[in-house]
């Protein structure tokens, strides 16, 4: 395909003109040739194109080799997938609920009727016998609000370092094992909840509506925050789409932003000081990750956005 050189004047553009007039227009058409000045030649453009194709191809290339595209292989693959699914269901007796990254609320009803609201990127597991002989759950990572149906069988949430035990109540549990100083945090909205450190079950405490407890990993002592008398115990802020954290490391805020908005944030800081910087943030219904990053970063760091869904933070 020609990209330069002579492109003819469209005959229709000259349709109404007499012969000599049309010739004059064609002269102007010719004379315009150098309008854009010097430009790369075709081989240079081709070299630029080759570079582009490398990137484009690696981002779009089909991940499955061609040989798999015959109908026979589809059938085989389908059989295999079914076999795998069946054996996994039979062998693996635990059920996992996992909330996808990004905004939006994942909620689940458990076999006993209890309701879970699962924050982005969080995961909870329970065995297939849940509800019959026991009501035990493992919060492997993340933050979940529980609205527990009343029952004589105790409802227990296990995190890396804590057990939370209730009979019928609603409460929030947060435990991100990857955080800089991981801790389990429990906040009670209604009813009574027992919390006990795994390593020191004798330190058990009862929490009432409005109270919250925090247990740092590797510690045995619960830190209790009492209810403020006038405040009505409310559901956690994340369930209302807000973004509210007090005294949390900047790195952990960014991990939270990554999950809530399904973005990637790199903190370029060799010393690690920026990552550990304590922060407090309150944003009601933030519309974008950038809104929070700009707020958190004010005076302390710079950020840039090299691509959609990607941010890079550097010290100020």
């Amino acid at each position, binding site marked *: 395909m020609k990209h330069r050189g002579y492109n003819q*004047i469209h005959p229709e553009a000259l349709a109404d003109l007499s012969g000599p007039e049309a010739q004059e227009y064609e002269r102007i058409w010719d004379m315009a040739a150098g309008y854009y000045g010097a430009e790369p030649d075709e081989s240079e453009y081709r070299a630029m194109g080759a570079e*582009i194709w490398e990137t484009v191809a690696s981002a779009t290339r089909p991940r499955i080799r061609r040989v798999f595209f015959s109908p026979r292989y589809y059938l085989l693959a389908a059989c295999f997938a079914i076999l795998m699914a069946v054996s996994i269901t039979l062998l693996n007796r635990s059920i996992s609920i996992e909330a996808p990254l990004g905004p939006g609320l994942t909620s689940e009803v458990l076999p006993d009727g209890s309701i879970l609201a699962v924050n982005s990127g969080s995961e909870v597991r329970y065995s297939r016998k849940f509800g019959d002989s026991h009501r035990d759950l493992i919060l492997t990572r993340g933050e979940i609000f529980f609205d527990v149906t009343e029952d004589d069988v105790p409802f227990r949430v296990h995190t890396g370092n804590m057990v939370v035990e209730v009979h019928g109540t609603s409460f929030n549990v947060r435990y991100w094992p990857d955080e800089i100083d991981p801790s389990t945090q429990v906040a009670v909205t209604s009813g009574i909840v027992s919390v006990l450190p795994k390593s020191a079950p004798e330190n058990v405490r009862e929490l009432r509506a409005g109270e919250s407890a925090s247990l740092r990993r590797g510690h045995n002592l619960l830190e209790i925050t009492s209810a403020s008398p006038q405040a009505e115990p409310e559901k956690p802020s994340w369930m209302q789409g807000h973004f509210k954290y007090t005294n949390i490391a900047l790195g952990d805020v960014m991990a939270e932003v990554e999950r809530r908005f399904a973005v990637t944030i790199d903190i370029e800081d060799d010393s690690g000081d920026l990552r550990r910087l304590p922060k407090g943030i309150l944003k009601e219904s933030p519309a974008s990750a950038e809104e929070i990053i700009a707020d958190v970063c004010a005076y302390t760091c710079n950020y840039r956005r090299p691509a959609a869904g990607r941010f890079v933070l550097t010290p100020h």
Partner: protein
Amino acid sequence: MQIDGNKPALDDDAFAEWSRRLAGPRADAHRAFKEVFDVMHVALISFSWRRYTKSQVMSQDIVQNAMLKLWEIRKTLDPKRSLKSLLYTMVRNLSLNAIRDRHPAQELNPEFMEDRVTQGPDDELDYRMRKQLLYQYISELPQRRQEAFTLSRFEGLTHEEIAGIMGLTARTVNTHITLALRDLRARMASL
């Protein structure tokens, strides 16, 4: 209107066929995607380079993003609408965004004065000066008129394709080009 001096080697049917294949199964879609890239990349990079960015890096980025976007929206392609115009439209819009966001200090001057005349025989001098003036006049054409004219003159696109890019009818495109030529001729004649 099929009498067309600009008729490219590849006709509309080829692009319609690529549109269909792009919307189809992934492996074949990717082969079609590669074919479209091979046929179009020089035209698209040079279009972005000469008309908008004057920058190798920027026009590469722009065409790359246009191609990735095309891959993303491949399932929604309508073979009845020109794929070629769509590509030009994407490159145009991405280019406009890119030069709008460009730091003012990087702003490049149009290069129509670059081969400044210093010596030469009188008639040659006269011709080169007239050329420089013509470039000046082209750059001063009303924006839509200039766009239609340059797309036709330098990108070798048909009136239908330009219509697809500019969101006009082919008839209006023709009017823009005719008026552009008339403006230029009038200003050249008054020298």
